[in-house]
């Protein structure tokens, strides 16, 4: 049996990679991609715990997370398209009109 802590460590690593990618990339689309990585890390954590606690609650949660992540990706990319149409850029540090 693979100990739970392995799964959780892997999920933590995946989450960190996702967060790191989110913070450093200029391309907005790739930032969203990193969010998906983070969500996957969370999913892995939940499924692993659900497995080890012999209950299905974690997997239910994962199920819904996947659905919502899909919706969020759709809307987010829709916004990216709108911004691209207005600003003709998808680089996040060029969209600084709220500069104070």
């Amino acid at each position, binding site marked *: 049996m693979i100990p739970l802590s392995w799964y959780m460590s892997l999920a933590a690593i995946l989450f960190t990679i996702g967060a790191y990618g989110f913070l450093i990339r200029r391309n907005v689309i*790739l930032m969203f991609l990193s969010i998906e990585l983070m969500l996957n890390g969370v999913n892995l954590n939940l499924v692993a715990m659900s497995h080890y606690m012999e209950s299905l609650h974690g997997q239910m949660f994962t199920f*819904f997370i996947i*659905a919502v992540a899909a919706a969020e990706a759709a809307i987010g990319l829709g916004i990216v398209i709108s911004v691209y149409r207005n600003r003709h850029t998808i680089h996040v540090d060029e969209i600084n009109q709220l500069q104070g």
Partner: protein
Amino acid sequence: MFAKFFFLYCGFVITFCGLAAVHLRNPVHCVLGVLVLFFHMAGLYLLLNAEFLAAVQVIVYAGAILVLYLFVLFLVDIRKELLLPRYVDSRFAAGAFAVGLLVCLLSILRSFVSGPHGSWSIAAVSRVTHTRALGQEIYSSYILPFEIVALILLIAVIGGMVLARRDSAVSGEGKRPEEEK
């Protein structure tokens, strides 16, 4: 034995693909890396006796969401993109944050205490298949979140159409009065 090897293999690939996705210059390559990563995630789910979720992961994530990402990437001029800098100017602060986050998360692990076990042991899940088990749970205890998620998806559909629509009808009507002047 096999499980451990499989886990290590999947874990290694996941880590490697994650780092690749974050660091590659060509966005399409990043998406492909993530694709590989999702397949191996599905593999891990299989190891955890969650077959349905593995299938959903591949179909929805790899099949739908990543395709959506690729379509949006077509808007961008990839050739120009390759020449521009990849990273934001605050990379080192982000790196410090990542290190700190990892340290925090890994140190919490030691103090994890599991709660009471539920009723769905591995044997119970395999007896009624995983799909049926999930179905039983969704349609009994989780019916309300299910409906709400359905609503969310509806909103996503409508929102996506509204946001991405080109306002050609409105600008067309607006032009004619200007031309008359």
